[in-house]
């Protein structure tokens, strides 16, 4: 009976879409079972907004606008980066609990399962964006270029999230142990700080400026600021001037690199 059912499933994209639906449902069930940890995870970026917006915000002088108008789009990008560490935690936990081992004994495609994960994670990304947008609106952030460009900004954010998901999957498969996820959680911060999320790279020493300006996080943050009509505090650097282009290209490049790496690493285990 069952082999016939298996054969009836079309290959490739359709199968991956099915796995994505299954894994999305799994995320929803996790939320239902562990609501507290979900709420804590969602509130953390809010805490960061409060910390930077009010604690440090007073010392930040933005040429044409408020610091919160500068910060919220940056934090939207940062929330996408938090997805990377969450993915490492999820993948390594599955490894530790033997879920990955079971999947490997099943007649399902490894890439399909991994791709399913990356798609399903977009749901996490959307919820993170919604929470951050609401937080922003409460603290006085004002996007003022209309809903269409606003949706385009969300598209760019999710595009970045998708790329980060693949980096997270790769690191999770590579590192294996949930303990090592802590290292990733720590490393997320320098990546975040070395960008235009919190301050303008122009305030940094030259070499840091270059790194921060070319950080994929900066490209998306700056592009989102432009799309929302928020101050960019921008420099004249080429990367800052072409932020939208880079916000499209960077995630594509990262996905092209890390998707095959993740798939290869997954297949290579124990071989």
């Amino acid at each position, binding site marked *: 009976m069952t082999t016939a059912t*298996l054969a009836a499933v079309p290959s490739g994209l359709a199968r991956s879409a099915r796995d994505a639906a299954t894994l999305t449902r799994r995320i929803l069930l996790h939320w239902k079972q*562990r609501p507290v940890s979900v709420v804590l995870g969602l509130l953390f970026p809010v805490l960061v907004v409060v910390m930077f917006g009010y604690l440090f915000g007073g010392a930040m002088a933005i040429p044409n606008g408020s610091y919160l108008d500068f910060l919220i789009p940056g934090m939207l990008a940062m929330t996408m980066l938090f997805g990377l560490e969450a993915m490492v935690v999820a993948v390594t936990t599955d490894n530790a609990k033997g879920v990955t081992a079971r999947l490997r004994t099943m007649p399902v495609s490894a890439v399909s399962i991994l791709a399913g994960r990356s798609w399903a994670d977009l749901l996490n990304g959307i919820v993170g964006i919604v929470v951050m947008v609401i937080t922003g609106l409460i603290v006085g952030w004002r996007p003022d270029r209309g809903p269409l460009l606003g949706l385009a900004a969300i598209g760019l954010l999710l595009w970045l999230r998708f790329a980060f998901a693949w980096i997270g999957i790769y690191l999770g498969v590579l590192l294996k142990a949930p303990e090592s996820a802590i290292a990733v959680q720590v490393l997320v911060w320098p990546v975040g700080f070395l960008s235009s999320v919190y301050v303008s790279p122009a305030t940094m020493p030259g070499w840091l400026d270059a790194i921060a300006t070319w950080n994929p996080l900066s490209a998306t943050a700056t592009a989102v600021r432009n799309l929302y009509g928020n101050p960019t505090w921008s420099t004249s650097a080429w990367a800052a001037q072409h932020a939208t282009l880079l916000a499209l290209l960077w995630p594509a490049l990262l996905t092209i690199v890390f998707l095959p790496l993740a798939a290869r690493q997954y297949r290579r285990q*124990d071989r």
Partner: protein
Amino acid sequence: MTGLAPEPAGGILAHGLSKRYGDHLVLDRFDLSVEPGTVCALLGPNGAGKTTAVRILATLLRPDAGQARVAGRDVIREPRQVRARIGVVGQHVSLDEILTGRQNLQLFGRLYHLREAEATRRADELLIRFGLSDAAGRPVAAYSGGMRRRLDLAVSLILAPPVMFLDEPTTGVDPGARLDLWASIRAIVDGGTTVLLTTQYLEEADQLADHVVILAAGRVAAQGTPDELKALVGPDRVETITRKPTLDDVFVHLTSHASAIEPARKARP
């Protein structure tokens, strides 16, 4: 294929399997033949190569040499076809601890690409079969070790595979739960499934297996039925002893429910 005679659909056949890690030869020209519908136990101490053999046969590990067919398919050339015909239970359970027992069965059923209704039907069927109906709505994190093992076994049976690999299925389980698991494994075998089981427990092999293969340092040291192996050691010994209850008996008596005790009494001579 060369070197191996065609074997019946549900069996396991391995020839000359070798696996080396660095200088250490973990498996050394390992041969195995398990008739369909029978239970074979791989017995041996830690490091004897039991798990390596199972992992190769379950397509999780590629051998350096040798060949093997499981359920009529080549483990190296047709891993996917093999995977559609086997169930694997490892030394550690493979479950999503946050989800409930039923949700685990449904999740893996859907990942096996069963249709929605079929995944649910199969989940309920297996919950009943493994005595987990009452706990079906509880998260696995709240399950006892024995319940986890049974759920793990249930998940491995979603596709009703003709061949099951059980790698030390009762390690770390208390004696009462072990008897429950033995009963479950016997039920699987009664359904016609071929089982390859690894264990460190002589009694487990004695209780469950039709055929026992003793592994030592990656090589087959001896094999045969439990009785044949016992005969190797010498003629039957007649010892007159008054058997007092062992601590095992006491433990089982005090801790497990009635249904778990019955098979044990019947099984003991």
